[in-house]
């Protein structure tokens, strides 16, 4: 009897050892590319904290040569989550609560504010500001139920409401990442965020330093919509490097890819009432600029849609979700709308 039991134990131990090695390998899988960019200012700032106080990096100078009014978008008094714990909890449920690294990126410091500019300056605070654009673009704010069927256009009766629910339901966990992820140290051309998928693994969205400190909060919000399109719906870019953007190109609008969703969200954000309590004229103007830039830069083929064509996007969201997003498909002219030239 003992001679029969011993080999079985040995087999079990071998399997357990293999499982342990496998689990260890799995833990390190998100960083399959072991190369970290040298220009990781945020990582350095966190590592060099004195008495627990981090000197958060300033905005990327290269970017802020442009629209300086965008600074106000991160102002602490202009983002309702800053004074509402409920709002912070609501935003966390977009995938941040399940995300990794936020503690290391100063979760305890979320409410820290730059003394001079009064801008929220921690990575998580800047991320909340991004989601604030998705949440508070709806007049319902955190009262919006994001859990209903995405076909429920009676409830999601504006594109912004539908988009908020889509962003919540189709996300992966959202990680903070202190790496700057620029292609070269000298270049300011940096990846903003990345969605990673693969078999037999937990998938995730990584937000990089450029997301926190290189772009304004409206671009951050549209980036989140963009990334979520890659997530549970698994829609990949199909345009290779054929567009201005060099990477993250979609072949055309009718690819219904991340760029189509991003640009449509910007249009919906723009087409909100003039007296909107959250969307100030500066925010609206910034959305218009980003609409023009992203539309031009991220598709290989010209997009016929203009900002004016979206004036009813918050009145008939189902049309834009189902028809407008697949329009201009030369290979499938029957089922999808073709815009007149």
């Amino acid at each position, binding site marked *: 009897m003992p001679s029969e039991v011993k080999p079985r134990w040995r087999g079990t131990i071998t399997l357990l050892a293999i499982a342990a090695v*496998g689990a260890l390998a*799995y833990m390190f899988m998100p960083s399959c590319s072991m190369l970290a960019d040298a220009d990781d200012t945020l990582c350095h700032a966190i590592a060099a904290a004195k008495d627990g106080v981090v000197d958060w990096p300033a905005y990327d100078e*290269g970017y802020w040569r442009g629209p300086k009014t965008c600074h106000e978008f991160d102002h602490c008094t202009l983002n309702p989550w800053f004074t509402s714990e409920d709002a912070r909890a609501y935003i966390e449920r977009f995938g941040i609560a399940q995300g990794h690294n936020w503690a290391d990126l100063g979760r305890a410091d979320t409410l820290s504010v730059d003394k001079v500019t009064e801008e929220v300056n921690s990575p998580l605070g800047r991320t909340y500001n991004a989601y604030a654009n998705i949440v508070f673009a709806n007049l319902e704010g955190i009262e919006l139920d994001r859990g209903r069927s995405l076909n429920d256009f009676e409830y999601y009766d504006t594109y912004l409401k539908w988009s908020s629910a889509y962003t919540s339901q189709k996300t992966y966990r959202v990680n903070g990442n202190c790496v700057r992820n620029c292609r070269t140290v000298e270049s*300011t051309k940096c990846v903003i965020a990345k969605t990673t998928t693969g078999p*037999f693994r937990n998938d995730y969205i990584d937000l990089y330093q450029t997301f926190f400190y290189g772009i304004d909060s409206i671009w951050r919000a549209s*980036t989140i919509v963009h990334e979520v399109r890659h997530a549970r719906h698994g829609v990949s870019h199909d345009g290779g*490097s054929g567009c201005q953007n060099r990477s993250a190109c979609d072949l055309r609008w009718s690819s219904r890819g991340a760029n189509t969703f991003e640009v449509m969200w910007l249009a919906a954000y723009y087409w909100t009432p003039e007296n909107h309590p959250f969307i100030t004229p500066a925010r609206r103007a910034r959305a218009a600029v980003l609409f023009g*830039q992203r539309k031009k830069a991220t598709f290989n083929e010209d997009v016929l849609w203009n900002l004016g064509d979206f004036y009813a996007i918050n009145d008939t969201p189902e049309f834009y979700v189902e028809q407008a997003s697949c329009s201009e498909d030369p290979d499938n*002219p029957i089922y999808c709308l073709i815009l007149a030239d």
Partner: protein
Amino acid sequence: MTFPRPAHTPIFSAVLFCALVQTGCTVEDEPSSTAGGYVFSRDFDGERGVLRIEPSHERAAECMKTSLPASANASWKEAYLAPETHRALVELLFDETRLPSYQADLNASKASGTRVCTPRSGAPDFCYVPEFVVTGDVPTVQVEVVVPDAPSRFVPSPLRFGLQPEVELSDEGQELIDAFLVAHQACWKVDD
């Protein structure tokens, strides 16, 4: 009745597990766009030429050339531009006295520009707008947004220059395009 347990089961399990781990590592990364730099793009005569330059003193540039419709595997070249070439382009871009001319060029392209369509064998016609566009965080011009049954409004727009024969460009607009062409050509000639 019992069957003898195969002696190689642990080894087989180990091989299988390692294979799964390797598969797990085969991930698909979907980046969002990149931020930074000024991008000049010219769609003309069935060809796309793009130049991305870095701001301020950095002279790093990337350029791309491809036929239209742009293929998914268009190749890019990286180079450092000569200081004077880089400076000329940036100065033309940020000279505020030139903005009214750039605005007039946008209005002209909106008013009279037409699309060019080229038939392709066995495929739907491909149409594109011959134009020169500058994106990135550069000075913007205003474009009119027309809405049915409502007063039209003006919103910020990237710089846009129509390249159709019927569009008359300002001297300032033409200078910017010429500076782009010089820089784009230089990008292809310069060694990395």
